[in-house]
């Protein structure tokens, strides 16, 4: 019984492998990109608009509101990254309805790649907002003794993001595979529905945690005395 789609190899030459993870990821990228391109071809601003445009507007405004609630003041700067993160993980999980499909996020390589993206983006936005010195100084808050702890927490947050998403997706597919050999009648369908729910929750969690990390890195520290004076 294979642990993930990494072992499902379609084509191999030397050490370059085309495995199930890569193939399903390409299929997801294709569907998301082509779908959104087709929907946003003729955007209308009147009351009469296509239902696909309505769907996209609901999704985009929902994500922007969530980003604002987390504490990032201009969601336009961050919605490109955070929205794509959410849509990719959510689409990867929702497509399990299609038979023969297995989520590429059930492989540690995909989730590690996504977590590394977050690991790179957080200092990028932090330096963009606060400058290099301001961002590096944030590692010595509240005291210089916390410097190793802050660095270790940065690394462990990334690892936790990767393993959390991998564990949730892999456990969902594995439970269904095991149940299909034990009680193949009704129970796998119930577990599939549970897998859909946890997939959506994990997509939300992944993007909200990325937003919280970015908010913590771009938090304006100099404004705190002014805010404290106001309240």
């Amino acid at each position, binding site marked *: *019984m*294979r*642990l993930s789609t990494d072992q499902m190899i379609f084509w191999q030459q030397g050490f370059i492998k085309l495995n199930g993870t890569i193939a399903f990821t390409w299929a997801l990228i294709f569907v998301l990109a082509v779908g959104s391109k087709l929907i946003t071809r003729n955007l209308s601003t009147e009351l009469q608009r296509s239902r696909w445009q309505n769907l996209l507007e609901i999704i985009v405004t929902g994500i922007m509101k*969530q980003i604002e*609630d987390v504490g990032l003041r201009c969601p336009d700067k961050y919605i490109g990254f955070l929205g794509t993160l959410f849509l990719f993980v959510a689409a990867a999980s929702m497509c399990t309805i299609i038979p023969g499909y297995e989520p590429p996020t059930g492989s540690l390589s995909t989730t590690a790649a996504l977590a590394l993206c977050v690991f790179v983006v957080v200092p990028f936005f932090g330096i963009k907002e606060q400058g290099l010195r301001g961002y590096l100084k944030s590692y010595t808050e509240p005291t210089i003794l916390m410097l190793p702890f802050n660095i270790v927490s940065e690394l462990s947050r990334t690892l*936790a993001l990767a*393993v*959390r998403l*991998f*564990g*949730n997706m*892999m*456990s969902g597919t*594995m439970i269904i595979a095991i149940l299909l050999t034990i009680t193949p009648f009704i129970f796998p369908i119930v577990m599939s529905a549970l897998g859909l729910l946890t997939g959506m*929750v*994990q997509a*939300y*969690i992944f993007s*909200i*945690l990325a937003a*919280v990390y970015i908010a913590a890195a771009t938090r304006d520290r100099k404004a705190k005395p002014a805010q404290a004076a106001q309240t």
Partner: protein
Amino acid sequence: MDSMTLIAIASIVTAGLTIALGSIGPALGEGRAVATALSSLAQQPDAASTITRTLFVGLAMIESIAIYCFVVSMVLIFANPFWNYAIAHAAGK
């Protein structure tokens, strides 16, 4: 008892114990988190969206501990490097 049997016994027992003991703590923690969230929802229903979002984020963090234990257990059963090495050794002989 040869080494292959020992490896098998150790892996199976550890896999079972890992997931059994590893789900006690997160379950208790999640129960307490949801109970507190419900009582604060009853006290302040207009903050429902903030409380719900924070509850979900907190539950995901607690759940990830159980997920770590599950991943270790799965690796021990399905992708066990010691077992694979022992199998390759025995097949090579």
